[in-house]
């Protein structure tokens, strides 16, 4: 295990988060923006699971292995990630519903063309 591997997963999470933010800020289509938000969120999954990983360990699921026979990774971050995935899916759905209504009421999904709510 070399030093690069010690930080690579964290750096990937940071990179994914910032990339998502970039896409969100420069998006020309609100559906695309919601997709970018989903990308941002996948950074949180990667970070959480990377934090809980343990070298040479396996999942803390004892249906097919004997408890204590092998080292296991951190189950808590997995539960958190699971919750996070649900949250992400629901937020995506809700925001897409709002985008649909914007398409109807404004006749466009380009944020540059939305001319309300200024000043």
């Amino acid at each position, binding site marked *: 295990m070399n030093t690069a591997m010690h930080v690579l997963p964290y750096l990937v*999470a940071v990179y994914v*988060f910032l990339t998502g*933010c970039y896409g*969100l*800020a*420069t*998006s020309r289509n*609100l559906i695309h*923006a*919601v997709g970018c*938000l989903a990308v*941002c*969120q996948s*950074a*949180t999954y990667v*970070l*959480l699971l990377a*934090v809980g990983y343990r070298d040479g360990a396996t999942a803390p699921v004892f249906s097919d292995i004997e408890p204590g026979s092998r080292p296991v990774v951190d189950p*808590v*971050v997995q539960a*958190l990630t699971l*919750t*996070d995935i649900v*949250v992400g899916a*629901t*937020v995506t759905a*809700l*925001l897409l519903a*709002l*985008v649909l*209504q*914007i398409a109807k*009421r*404004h006749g466009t999904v380009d*944020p*540059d063309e*939305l*001319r*309300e*709510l*200024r*000043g």
Partner: protein
Amino acid sequence: MHHLLPLLVALPLLGAAVLVATGRHLPRIAAEITGFAVSGGTAALAVVLLLDSSPPMVEWVGGWLPVGGESVGILVVGDGPALGMATLVSLLTLAALAYSWRYFDQPPHGRTGTFTALMLVFQGGMCGFAIAGDLFNAFVFFELMSVTAYALTGYRIDEAKAVQGALTFGVVNSLGAYAMLMGIALLYARTGELAMTKIGRGLDSAAGQGGPDALVLASFVLVLTGLLVKAAAVPFHFWLPDAHAVAPTPVCMLLSGVMVELGAYGVWRVYGTVFAGPGGIPAADLTRALVTLGAVTAAVGAVMCWYQRHIKRLLAYSTVAHTGLFVIGLGILTPEGDDGVALYMLGHAGVKAALFACAGVLLDRFGSVDEHALHGRAGQLRATGVMFGIGALGLAGLPTFGTGLGKAITEEAVGGPLTVVFVAASAVTAGAVLRVTARVFLGLGPRPEDAEYETSGSDEEPETPGLLGRIPDTMTIVPAVLLAAALAVGSVPGFGELVARYVNETGSGGAHVSVHWTLHGAVLGVASTVLAAALAALAVTRPRWVAAPDWAAPLRRLQSGHVGDYVAWLLVGATVLGALALPGVLGG
């Protein structure tokens, strides 16, 4: 007693689930009574728990009591500030439900209880966030209240502005929440714990003699970004006017009255339990960061508030200005500051909710919330006009309003040149509201000219099935009660002391400070009121003297309604926050 703490969340959720399950067969009145009963029951429970919260309660949900100091469960805290916020949330929800009693637009066909159910879930989410003692749990309830708030903001799908505001709200707040979650993951990596107190201790022991490092700083910045987005501190604030101006009135009462304040409360709670130790962020750095952001927020909020013509948007900016003041008060980290902000929040919740309620009356009576279009048209709404004026005086901090008491104490705690910020921000926001009162209800002055880059409040759909001919009693009584409550917070003898005792018991390690009106505070409160009245008079009689100067135009252009801009500002805000807190990390 402490076993009942999670019921503050469970009861509203259960009520909502029952309402949705039976929604198809329930007449509207039954659904509203159910919502009322559930919300009221939760409020009663919150009050009972609050009265019992000395010494502070803790509850391990699921009965996972710590063994040898370690637990695997979730901690819920039942101290004064947490239960006080839960009580405020519940009472305000009750008020909002009473306000929307029978008046609100027909619910979707066959889904009678949907609006009430969403309000109940919102209440449950906010209560859950208030009493959370576990950082991830706080994130979950943060998301619950956010998701409900997005849906409620976009409730009127026929309104172009409403759906746009709701989407902006949703994107910016979700991004903030994800930033917060990244911060939580960093903290978990460092300390291996999720309960806030344990994380705090873990940071201290990990730091040893060394003090904080970049990881602590980054997690601090990320977690605070999430909370400050909710609290709408500049430059995270852009979503707030867009969302609060377009949400249905009862929802606005909750959003401006208590949800934004919950963000500031979260900052206080997280800093106090997680980052206050020697391994966290030094107090001087937090003070620098929060006071700077708070002062800028108050200034920007006040200036933007003054130049609005959309009345609900004007009120939303005044919320921005006032949260800036809260953030300053919390940032100085003294028991007096905490007490003052607690009282200020209580008074502000009453006043702001009442003002939004009055704006809702205008919307439903005239189908417009535009100051220019309504000029002189609302003369016959005498009661609403009087309440609008009284609310303005409350915003200015006139003795003996709760806002006045809270502001006086906070000003005294902050001291120095920042007093000017307090007086000016409250005077300008109150002046703007008084100006609206004078123009809309009294018809004073000439009709103002339209500016180029602004949001008009004309052509809005009323929230009732049609324009109201006469105003229902509930829509008058609710703001009156709210204003009376705001007045009571500052004038009932001993109430301030009581609040201070609850706050200090948790916040400052039992150091009790005395809280009461002082001559100095009262004079400053009267001064802001006079200043507000003068500004309003000037605006009405000599509109050109106080018209938007050239330097305000770029500030208004920043509020572009473009979600990409807001995201970029969010990143800048996180960077600024990091830069402001950096010296302590470098020095340590």
